[in-house]
Every structure is written in C-alpha cells, then in structure tokens.
C-alpha cells in the first residue's frame, strides 16, 4: 500500500474507531440510566443507616444524579472527550488511577493466557496430525470440544482446589505470583485454546490434502518439517482472526477468572462497578474494551498481508486487501 493511499485509509480507520468508542460510552450510559437506583442511594438507603429520601437528596444532587439523563450524558461525554474519566462514585478516587492500577495485572493475565492458549492449540493441532491415526489423533481431535464444554470457572475451581489447596503450589493470598498467574492463565486460556485448535486442525487437514503437501512428503521430509514448513504457515491466517476474536473472550473471561483467583484487575473492577452501579468506572471500562477491540482488529488487518503474500500483492496493486 503506498503512503498516499495509506494516510486516508488510516485517518478513516481512526475516525471509525473514535465513533465506536464514543458510541460505546453513550450506549453504556443509556443502559445504566434505565436501571433502577444509583450508587449513592444504594449505599445510603441501606436499612442499617436510617436515612430518609429528603436527607440523601443533596448528596445525589452533588453528584448530579438528579439531573435529566440527557444533561448527565452531555456532561459526562464532554468530560470524557477531553480525556477526563471522572471520579468513582464508589471509591471516591479518580477513575484513571483505578484503571491504571487494574490494567497491568489483567494484561499479564490475558497475555499469559493467550500464550498458554497458543501453545496448547499448537500442541493439540500437531498431535492431531502426527499421532497414530486411530487412537492418538482421535483423542487430540476430541480435546477441543471437551475443553469448550467445561466452563472456565469450573476449570479455575479445580485448579485452585488441587494445585493451591492440596498441593500448595500457590497461595490464594498471593494471586499475582508467578505460579498463581500461570494457573489463572490456564483457566482462562484453555477454552480459548480449544477454539484456536479447532480452526487450526480444520486448516491443517485442508493443507494436508493439497498436492504440494503430497510432493513434500514424497521428497521424504520429516513430519515435524512438513508441519512447520508446509502445513502451519498457510493455516495461520484464520488463526490470526481467531486470536483477534479471542481477545474479547479473554477480557470477558478475566471477570470470572479474576474473581475466582482473587486477582485485582479490569475484570474484578467491572464486577464491583456493576454491583455498585459505579457509572463513571463502568463507562470508562466499556470504552477501554472498545479501544482494545479497535486496536486488535487494526493489528489483525495489518498482519494479514505479512502472512499471506497474495494479500501483499493485492495491496500493492491498489486493490482492497
């Protein structure tokens, strides 16, 4: 793609991304506004406190929660557009500080989970091609479906019970330690690995049926060479798409995994923001998720031509990739 054609393309993509993010923010706002209650009333109207509605009205007014929804939305989105994420109604702290605290742990977990998923998927895929056809390959081909049908929280609970509580390999009180992170990543990564493995196996099978593959095999190449050189690369393109799609799954899955493993992260922040109706935090988190999706999709688009020379040629010829 030439520089002249890339710049308008990039600008268009960036414009789309901004619209998506603002829409995500507004949509969250709309959803929350139709729910009953607000975080201030939820906290103060606890029967423990004995407040009357008249007493809490000035506090609700302080946070602007008594204003018409459109006015609240306009104030929030204008602030958001200037990069101000607001203050958490629950924690009385800037949302940006809370996000910065939570992000690193989730990035480490999601990154490790993706690595785990890729390694597992590759191992299963390789086994599906290399093991004895009758039993070995059959088992390898059943594994993804089996892993997909077990919810990640069950995997998480089993891992915690066996490896933390019985074998003592990690402590629930130190969920960010290396061992705990690996097990949390396993819980999060196993269902993702299954999806990737399924796609990969289908593509590997397709490539294995091609003539060039038969020629390579006739030349006497070893199975591992065949797999690495001739089978894997042409099968990788759909895997890139799968990875891009899986990022969302990792973000969503982190909510459950972080809660079960007691890790502080974006997922657990979502959980507490939902439970306490902490609007500013929730809106910022949804926007963050939108940003991640936009970036991941962009990255996937840019990766395709690198993996597939045909797409590179098409791009060079000015045709849409």
């Amino acid at each position, binding site marked *: 793609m030439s520089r002249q054609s890339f710049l308008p393309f990039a600008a268009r993509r960036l414009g789309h991304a901004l619209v998506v993010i603002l829409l995500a923010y507004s949509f969250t706002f709309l959803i929350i506004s139709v729910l009953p*209650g607000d975080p201030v*009333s939820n906290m103060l109207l606890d029967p423990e406190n004995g407040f009357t509605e008249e007493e809490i009205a000035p506090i609700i007014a*302080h946070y602007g929660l008594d204003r018409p929804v459109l006015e609240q939305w306009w104030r929030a989105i204008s602030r958001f557009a200037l990069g101000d994420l607001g203050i958490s109604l629950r924690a009385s702290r800037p949302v940006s500080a809370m996000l910065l605290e939570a992000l690193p742990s989730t990035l480490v977990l999601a990154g490790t989970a993706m690595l785990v998923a890729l390694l597992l998927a590759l191992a299963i895929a390789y086994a599906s091609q290399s093991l004895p056809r009758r039993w070995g390959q059959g088992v390898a081909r059943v594994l993804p479906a089996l892993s997909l049908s077990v919810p990640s*929280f069950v995997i998480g*609970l*089993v891992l915690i019970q066996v490896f933390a509580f*019985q074998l003592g390999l990690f402590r629930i*009180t130190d969920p960010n330690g290396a061992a705990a992170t690996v097990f949390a990543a396993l819980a999060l990564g196993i269902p993702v690995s299954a999806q990737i493995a399924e796609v990969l196996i289908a593509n590997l099978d397709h490539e294995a049926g091609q003539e060039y593959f038969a020629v390579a095999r006739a030349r006497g190449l070893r199975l591992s060479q065949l797999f690495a050189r001739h089978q894997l690369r042409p099968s990788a393109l759909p895997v890139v798409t799968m990875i891009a799609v899986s990022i969302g799954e990792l973000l969503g899955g982190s909510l459950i995994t972080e809660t079960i493993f007691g890790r*502080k992260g974006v997922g657990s922040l979502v959980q507490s923001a939902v439970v306490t109706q902490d609007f500013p935090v929730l809106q910022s988190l949804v926007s963050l998720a939108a940003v991640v999706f936009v970036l991941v999709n962009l990255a996937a688009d840019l990766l395709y031509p690198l993996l597939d020379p045909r797409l590179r040629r098409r791009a060079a010829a000015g045709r849409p990739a």
Partner: protein
Amino acid sequence: MPLARRALLTLLSGSAALLAAPAVAQTASPRRSGGELTFLIGSLDSGWGLNEKVDSYTGIVWGQLADKIVHVDDKGEATPWIAERWEENAGQSEFILHLRAGPSFADGSPVDARAVAANIELWARGDTSRGVGRLGLFPSSTYKGSEVLDDRRVRVSFTRPTLSFIPTLGYHKTVLRSLASLNLKAEELGNLDRQIGSGPFTLQSWLEGDHVVLRRRPDYNWGPQALAHQGPASLERITFKVVKDAAIRAAALQAGQAQIALNIAPHELRPLKARGIRAVAPDSLGFVSGFSVNTRAPFFDDVRLRQALQHAIDRQEILDTVFTEDWKPVTTLLQPNVPEAADLSALLAYDPEKSNRLLEEAGWQRGADGIRARGSDKLRFNLFASPWVGTSKQVDEVIVQQLQKVGIAARLQVVDIATFNARVRNNDSVPLREISRSFLDAGVVGNVLTDADRGDNWFKLGQSNETLNRLAQDIATAVDRRSRAETLKEAQRYVLEQGLFIPTAQLNQRLYVQAGTVKGEAYSGGGYALYHGAWLDA
C-alpha cells in the same frame, strides 16, 4: 455461589481433608509477639472515604487502623479509650469529653480536642459540598455543635436529651481520622494512603478493592482501657485479602493459607469445625433479623392478620434448618445481648392453630388450592429477601413454606440492592420489609416507631397511633437509662403483640471463622474485631 460450584469444591476438598492435620492448640500458651495474620474478606468495595463509606467490611479494617473516642462492649457499656472520662449534664444534652494525653495519628499530628471536635462535626453534619452525607446512626437531629475548650477537652451540645451520644462514639463508623484526612478533596477521600488513623496498626500497602496490609505501630500505647492487653499490638502484620467466593474462603482456611475467613455460609461450618476451626459469632447490639410490617399494605391494617403471621413462623425450625448452634433463639425484636431486650418468647410462640383461628376470625377462608381468600381477595403477597443479609434467602424459603401451612401464599423474590430499593422502599403494596439494623444504644428503637423527628416510620403508621407516639416520645426524651429501659420493654411488648414486627432469627452479620491458633482478639459491641491484643499461637 450456585449450589453446583459449592458441591464441586466440597467434592474436591474431600481428599484434602485426609491430607491436612488439625492444628488446634488445646492448652493455654503464653502471648507470642510477631507473626502475620491473614484475614480473608468478601469485599472491600465501599472504599475508604468518610462516614457511610465505612461499611460492614471496611469497618473491620478501620478497627485496626483507627481509634474511637470510647469503647462499647457487647452489653452497650461505654468505657474510656481516647476519652479518658466524660461529664454529662443532668438533662443529657451537654457532654464534656476529657481526652487522654499522648495519642497521635500515624502522620504525627496529635489526637487532640481540635481533631476530635472536627471528627464529631463531620459525623453530625457531613459535607454536601464534597458529597459526604452525615453519619446515619449519629444523633444529628438534636446536634447543636462541638466546642474546643482546651487541648484536651471538647464540649458537645444537643438541643434536647441525647442518651445515645456517648455509646454512638463506639460505633464502627465513628473512627477518628487526622485533620488532614478529614479535609481532603472529594476525589482524594478514597485514597487510603491519605486516610490516617491513630490505631495500633498503620498502613503498609493496599490495592483498591483487593488487599490492605497493616503493620504494627511500635509506639501505640492508648488502647481501650477495658481490654486486657495494653501497649503495642502483638501481631507484626495483618493482611486483609479480598476473596469474593465464600466457598474458596472456607477452602483456603482449611488449607492453612489464612487464619481467619469472614462469613462462611452456616451449612459449611460443620465440616470446618470438625477440623478444629472455630466459628466466632460475637454478640452484636441491634435489632434481630425480622420484618417490619407495613400497615398500609392491603389487609395488613388488620391486627389479626399480623398476629397470625407472628404465630405461623416456627423460629426453631429456621434455626435448625438454616443456622448452626452459633445462632441463639430470638426472644424479642432486639438482639439477645442488648441490655434492654425483654424475654417475650411467649408472644413469638409457634402456634399454627392460633394463626388459623385468627385468620378465620378475620374472614380468611381456605380455598380449594389451600390459599385463604376473603371474597375475591386472595391472601397472597411478595416477600423480598434482603440483599444485605447473606442468609436471608434461605430463611425466607423456610418462612414461605411455614406460611403456606396456614394458607398464606408468600412468593419469594430475590433481587439486588437497587431493585430492592426501587420495589420495596415506599411501596405500600409490599407488606413485609426485612430489617437488618445494628445500634450501640437502644434509643434507636424510639426512632423507628413513628415519623416524628425524622423517624423511620417502620410500620407506616405516621403519628396516628397514640401508644407508639407516647413510647417514641418517652424514649427520645429520657434522661435516665433505667427508666428508659422500662419504656423500651413496654415498646417491645406492644410492637410484638400488635404484630408490627415479626422477628425471625438472630442477626449475625459478622461470623469470624478462624484457626485455633488465633488468640486474644476482642470484639466491640457491634461485633467488630479488635486485633490489638491478638496473637498467633505457635
């Protein structure tokens, strides 16, 4: 946690039971200094701001980080802490607090009259300019002001008798914070680094909603006088770690990864106890769990229907089905340890025949479906489980079945806090509202009977009931605890006889499930732990 998940953990932990050895010290051992206590807690979500931001969970952390003006024990008795003594006028409307010399906040500033007065002022009035409400339980409606007399004396005045003032100073939310902490900007209030107390522990590290690590303060020497241990804390460190799932808290405790887990479901206690783990349910002052009856709800203006409900509930069955021996039977609407609690068990006796008779008298006849009806009206209503009480749903499930036996169809609704507030609060079609309220002074009972003086008006009678008006007035204006106790007993009897409050079970909001190695801890009247004197047995 869904049952399936719990069952899975139970199944998996079966083999762990064989591996782990019970670690219970059977003999008394000397106090040991040092060691780290790990405390698993279900939430630290409310943040670290002022007043109502202190909740049932963060209140336990604050109990170690900060001091209170007085210590209130499980009998509601106030004893010296930061205030070494106090004077009160005959009319109970003016109090002079005499502060002890020496205490300082962790930032080095003194815990003096200025700091104490500023704290009281903020509890009483809040600060709406920073979005801070007043403290719910503080007697704000009669509060006049606080005056610094000198470095160690504060005068606090009220417009009329306020017997509850001194006990309220031992409430888990009336924690003393440094002046700098009180004056933080709205967006800084939740920053625990800047919320400074004067307690036996100081902050070492924390992560929002995840953990708080406290370290012993070596120069601490101003703990509650009533407690045996004086001087610095014995424990070197306390780690509060959030583990949201109760079954995982229980399993971690069982595996020895923590010493204390807060609030495990009652039915999971038995296997833990079998392995030497103790369940400590400290007596806490307040109302028992139960329902306030909305007399404006359809049919519930009829005292016979309310009384029928009172006798249709088998409280022993609730204890046997949902709870363990750690829960005591209820005898009135106040917790068993409240000094003013009367034994009115006879009024709460399970007597379905009496319920049936009362309902028949009121014209409610059983239909073919077993549900009573009067003309075209069916005796049926929605029963909302309290989202604030973990065991509420299980208790209500039992109650629904018990009511069914006398022909009352209650439909259990389980909703979240926001929905509960929207659908139950101020909704006169809902007859029963589940109550969970603690207090440190039983004068609070007077506030709930009517709507006089911003009263809570639990029974929606406003000021239409002469007896309740008189009782509320007498409780509010009492200047002598003994005579007020008599009025309070009369109030309990009247409310129960009239079926205006239907008690169900003892309210146990803080259940400390802990290893046998934890020794020497104390509890406040609200059931909040104080680990100043705690140590870990080897």
